[in-house]
């Protein structure tokens, strides 16, 4: 996991927008109280509220089965919500047929028509709507995705990455209000995936349309989207800019699914307007009150491994902060850009520490006594009733 640039934690932005009922005022995609139950009683999506601003690159992120693909298919018109409404630029499209809504989809399997060549695949939507200038527009679109030379080939003759770009072009040429991407990079290998992420982002900036991207890969979501909604169990756990989600997660699921976190048991001692004091296994630590996401006194003190500083006992570390003595290094992994430590604390828990290899600090070895510390503004406090391991197993990659 890469280091995230330090950003001052912004005041919480309301992720559940005001329910004003005035849909016509909103020019983006809006879901209100959308629920989808399948035959058999399985609820894939429950009471979902979502605002996707026009022109944004929006990611729905979550493990498989969290309801993100169902949400996407309801927006595309391939599923009908059990209840709730979907509006697009003020128009109610909840029950509109898929071929009557200004939404296009890039399917996970691409779903390119095998009996048509690339040109006709891309032209398909224009021809169905009897649009003019099909020839010129298809050629322009093929140029945008750099496939002009492949126009007369069949989909089966193209590589995976090329097929993916055809699928993108075929959807984009219709100038949809919203472009839906259903894990479109899932079938590609890692290297191609990374370059396609950049490519898709470039195209989105160029055409300036609303993209809704469904993925289970948190790195992909953070790289590409300007707003990420983390979904779990049919509801949105948290929504915001990637840095905001990463820096200030509001549930253990987000804390673990989006990068790794140390979660340590703590008890609130005192709540003030700016700072909340927490007793953590007998050590007093403070957490900025805007970063406290629990009303109860029992909580998890959370801190990202790269925010934890490691040093020999007694040495003054960085700025005045929370210092936790009595650690013993139990494991050291040198990974080049950083060194990753596991430090066993006096209460028996092992904490993760990622130390950037700047050359200014020496490496510690297994068995050494160390002290940990972190700046209070990086810590966050979560509700103790949540599972400390939630989301960790579903995380993609490290």
């Amino acid at each position, binding site marked *: 996991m890469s280091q995230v640039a330090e950003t001052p934690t912004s005041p919480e932005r309301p992720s559940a927008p005001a329910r004003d009922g005035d849909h016509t005022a909103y020019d983006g995609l809006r879901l209100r109280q959308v629920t989808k139950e399948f035959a058999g009683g399985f609820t894939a999506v429950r009471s979902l509220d979502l605002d996707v601003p026009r022109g944004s690159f929006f990611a729905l992120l979550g493990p498989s089965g969290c309801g993100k693909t169902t949400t996407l298919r309801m927006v595309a018109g391939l599923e009908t919500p059990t209840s709730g409404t979907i509006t697009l630029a003020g128009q109610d499209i909840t029950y509109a047929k898929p071929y009557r809504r200004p939404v296009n989809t890039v399917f996970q*399997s691409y779903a390119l028509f095998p009996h048509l060549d690339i040109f006709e695949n891309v032209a398909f939507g224009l021809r*169905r709507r009897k649009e003019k200038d099909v020839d010129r527009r298809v050629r322009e679109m093929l140029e945008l995705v750099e496939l002009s030379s492949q126009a007369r080939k069949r989909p089966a003759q193209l590589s995976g990455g090329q097929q993916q770009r055809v699928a993108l072009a075929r959807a984009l040429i219709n100038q949809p209000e919203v472009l839906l991407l259903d894990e479109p990079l899932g079938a590609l290998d890692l290297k191609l995936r990374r370059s396609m992420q950049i490519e898709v982002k470039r195209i989105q900036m160029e055409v300036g349309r609303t993209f809704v991207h469904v993925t289970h890969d948190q790195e992909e979501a953070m790289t590409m989207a300007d707003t990420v909604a983390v979904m779990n169990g049919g509801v949105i756990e948290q929504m915001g800019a990637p840095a905001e989600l990463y820096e200030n997660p509001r549930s253990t699921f987000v804390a673990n699914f989006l990068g790794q976190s140390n979660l340590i048991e703590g008890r609130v001692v005192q709540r003030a307007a700016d700072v909340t004091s927490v007793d953590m296994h007998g050590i007093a630590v403070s957490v900025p009150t805007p970063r406290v996401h629990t009303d109860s006194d029992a909580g998890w003190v959370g801190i990202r491994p790269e925010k934890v500083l490691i040093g020999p006992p007694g040495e003054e570390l960085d700025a005045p902060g929370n210092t936790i003595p009595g650690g013993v290094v139990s494991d050291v992994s040198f990974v080049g850009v950083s060194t990753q430590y596991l430090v066993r604390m006096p209460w028996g828990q092992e904490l993760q520490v990622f130390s950037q290899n700047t050359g200014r600090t020496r490496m510690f070895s297994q068995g050494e006594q160390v002290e940990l510390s972190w700046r209070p503004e990086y810590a966050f406090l979560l509700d103790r009733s949540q599972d400390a391991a939630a989301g960790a197993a579903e995380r993609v990659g490290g």
Partner: protein
Amino acid sequence: MSRAGRWVREHLVLVLGLLVLAYTFVPIAIVVLMSFNAPASRNVYAFDGFTLDNWANPCADPGMCDALARSVQIGLLSTLLATVLGTLAAFALVRHDFAGRSASNLLVFLPMAAPEIVLGSSLLALFVATGFSGQLGFWTIFVAHVMFCLSFVVVAVRARLAGMDDHLEQAAMDLYATPVQTFRRVTFPLVFPGILGAALLSFSLSFDDFIITNLNAGTTTTFPMYVWGVAQRGVPMQVNVIGTVMFLVSVAIVVVGEVGNRRRLAART
């Protein structure tokens, strides 16, 4: 060991396989050969001399060509109906969910599993029981042929439909195709090769059927029944002309299909 010997050892299975394949062509070679035969007598079935007469006068025995025309007629008609009914049923079985779906699948499977003689005698029993035993002929043959071709059509089209990615139709709908356009532009073109194959199979089954037809034909004669009849009293060599033409036509159909495939593959760079 000689080089040839070593080659045979290494390719023993292939050589044996090719021998089996060659064995299946022996009767075809005889059919082609006999189509040029000038028989010395009607009762001896042997190659006596070369002639082109059989090819020049294929309808020397008018009975044969009548039977042939009847077989083609029945084949085309029953293929048409069986293909339409079978394709509709295949769509129902793959695309639709309804009570009795698995019973319907069984209903389609059983006629293919039952011996022909049982299918034929069942139908005859029905025709006799309902007082149609006097009207056996063209239409009772047609009814029987549609019945046994239907199952094969359903199976062939069903396989093609089931192998189709259903995201393709969703993609078409997503790209502004109405249900009718989706069917015309995407579903049908993709299923068509399956339907065509099913129709060809259906025609050849109908054209070639003897056991079921013979029981339900009354006095009507199809081509296989004609051959059966003349087998007892001397076979006109024109029968072999027909056999050769059938072989050539089927090979031609296969070659055309294969060339089409190759051409599509050759576009690969």
